């Protein structure tokens, strides 16, 4: 299976129906993508596939062949959202944070609160009550 991962070509020898989540964590050794529920409810495993936020636990790797996948590692360490999540304490336990930040990336530059709430409705956070996450995304504008 070939696809572009965080800007670089990768070729992994895995079953085409393997979950993208497992391929990323095990074959590609990128553990920033987390498994919270394995059924597409919590959003902890969110990655970008061709710029769209998807749950990598629901996607067979065959579906991204030839496509572009971005994980939290692909944002580096200086992305404006990462800085804002640090500054506003948008991360508590941190397990939802990679997925939360990647979803936030898809919301564009100046999302309204209503758009943020709608956009993040598929990413569960049990620590923050979401307010600090809204503050972080507002700050990152």
């Amino acid at each position: 299976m070939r696809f572009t991962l965080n800007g670089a070509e990768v070729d992994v020898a895995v079953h085409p129906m393997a979950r993208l989540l497992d391929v990323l964590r095990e074959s590609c050794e990128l553990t920033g993508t987390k498994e919270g529920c394995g059924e597409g409810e919590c959003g902890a495993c969110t990655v970008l596939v061709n710029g769209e936020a998807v749950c990598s636990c629901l996607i067979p790797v065959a579906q991204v062949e030839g496509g572009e996948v971005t994980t939290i590692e692909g944002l580096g360490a200086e992305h404006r959202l990462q800085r804002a999540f640090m500054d506003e304490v948008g991360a508590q336990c941190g397990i939802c944070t990679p997925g939360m930040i990647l979803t936030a990336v898809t919301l564009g530059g100046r999302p309204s609160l209503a758009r943020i709430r709608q956009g993040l409705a598929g990413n569960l956070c049990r620590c923050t009550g979401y307010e600090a996450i809204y503050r972080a995304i507002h700050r990152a504008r």
Partner: protein
Amino acid sequence: MNAVGRSVPRKDGIGKATGAARYADDLRFPGMLVGRTIRTTVPCGRLNGITLDFDRAGFTVVDCRDIPGKNVVSLIEDDQPCLVEREIRHVAEPVLLLAHESRDALLSARVTLEEEPKAPVFDPEQSPVAFKTILIEKGDLAAGFSTAEHVVEGSYRTGHQEHVYIEPQGVIAVPEANGVAVYGSIQCPFYAQRALAVVLGSAVSHVRVVQTETGGGFGGKEEYPSGLACHAALLALKSGRPVKLIYDRVEDMVATTKRHPAIVRHRTGLTRDGGLVAMDIEVILDGGAYTTLSPVVLSRGAIHAAGPYRCDHVRIAARAMFTNTPPNGAFRGFGAPQTQFAVEVHMERIAEALNLDPVRLRERNLLRPGDTTATGQRVGDDCSAREVLRTAVRRSGFRRKRKAYQGTGRGIGLSLYWHGSGFTGSGELKLASRATVELTATGVRALTSSTEIGQGTRTMHAQIVADALDIPYETVEIATPDTSVVPDSGPTVASRTCMVVGRILQRAAEEIRGKLGDLTPAEYYRQFGQLTVTKQYEQPDWIRWDEIHYRGDAYAAYAWGCDVAEVELDTDTWEIRPTRLTVVTDVGKAIHPALALGQIEGGTAQGVGYALLERVTMRDGVMANAQLTNYLIPTTLDTPRLDVVLLEHPYAGGPFGAKGLGELPIDGPAPAVVNAVRHLGLDVRAIPAVPEVIMEAACASR
């Protein structure tokens, strides 16, 4: 520049924002196997046999006969087996452990259990076995009732609540030269260490427990990981290889602990103008199939059961009962959310019955400095029940909205609550927690067993140490909780990590400061070498506690809160939509305002879920909706806007005046939301108030 009182950068912020932080499932060890747990399927019965229907090549198999020490998960009572031998007390009890290199092979291995079912007990009121009973008596109840001009009675129920930490339970056990190391998502490494030593029959020095980055706990990773650690260790020691044991979400929800369901009955005597003259309270908790922490959950629940009110004649009779369901355990709030839900909904019904304003009823009765609680504790000058109530009422526009919402499909309600910080009574004295500060080449390192589970332990402890030493926050390191390295500072529970452990660290740092003279830690280290100071908990000298009669100073300090909830009713779906919560708390001192705010906001959201969404459906003794698809926690769209105020009336015994705050915010939302529902004209006395409950209440009111 002082660090305390400023929102300095989290010590762990960068790792969490970049995905570099390593959680249990992110770790790999050479030759590592994956583990799996085979569990019972009946709620009560006998295990008569186990048949392995697979080729055992490549498998490590462990049953109760492989346990070298005692077959118990050691906690308060040693009644829970590590692996079932004969007696089955609940569905999903661990029976057999398997490990294999391949997860696929592991999952396809078939095991048949020969289970002989017996009649289970599911109703805690019908249960013949009490794990613990508590009686709190103050004054003369009969005399109190004899002066009452009104008596109001009511029964209230709360359901299970599942923690839903987003990272499921998980550990990795690694054989070491003369023992085993367990790495894992664990709130209390020393609990796990002690349990391992008992199961393995080895000295605690041969067992090492190391906390990995932990993706949420909320009490769910307090006692449960002890059994899990034992399972992984047994597999690792038998196979001679590292074994990773990570639960998936379904297994986590079916098998692990939850918040205790409760039935609370109130009978209250009042004067005509709403003065409380007698409170008779019965508390029943469903403990599940083993003792776990039920006695202490019951204790906290009972002590908080009369709410933050003064009353001269009180009886609180509480019991935690056995049922054939998976054991319930620690969950943020620890019994207090259940009993405070009851008393606050009851207060609202009293206001209704006596035709009194709910704010004035509470003002009339709330604890003021110098008043005594149900256990006879005199509350100090840091008691701010009246101030949180007044601030919340004013800030939310409660009185205006209470009138304006009448008959509009919108409702507004409030709750007043309190939460004791630290272990109950003489619990802290028994723990005798220790904390260490030592020099490094660049500053200092703080060593405690307090775990970072998201709440900000590392950051907050570093701030306290930095200011106690008057050194930059950045030069304070926090040691990873590893039982072979750090002293035992007690468990990371009970709103004690800041107030109790933080205070011990502060004293250790102050002693270091006295020895440094004019030198910085780094200068001292270069000239004179290492300096290490370990301090132990010292109980404030005024604390008196009678464990037998439940009399005296139950907690060294209380934090205070008032919530105002605003809701809307959707008459098509019967959903209650919370639109706004105003939360006013007094936490003594917010060491890190943004972290403190995050704790209050997050706890409030969990409380809203507890009130409206989170229903555990038990069927034949097992959770039938053990998936996030049908056990719902609040999403962004379910969580109301939260307006949080932090008041700071310092507690002299806490570091820089701080009290505990982690659990406080879970006590208020459920009664505030249900009281807002009552304002809509719906008589709801049970949570979760899911649409079916609302619809029934609406039909009954017609």
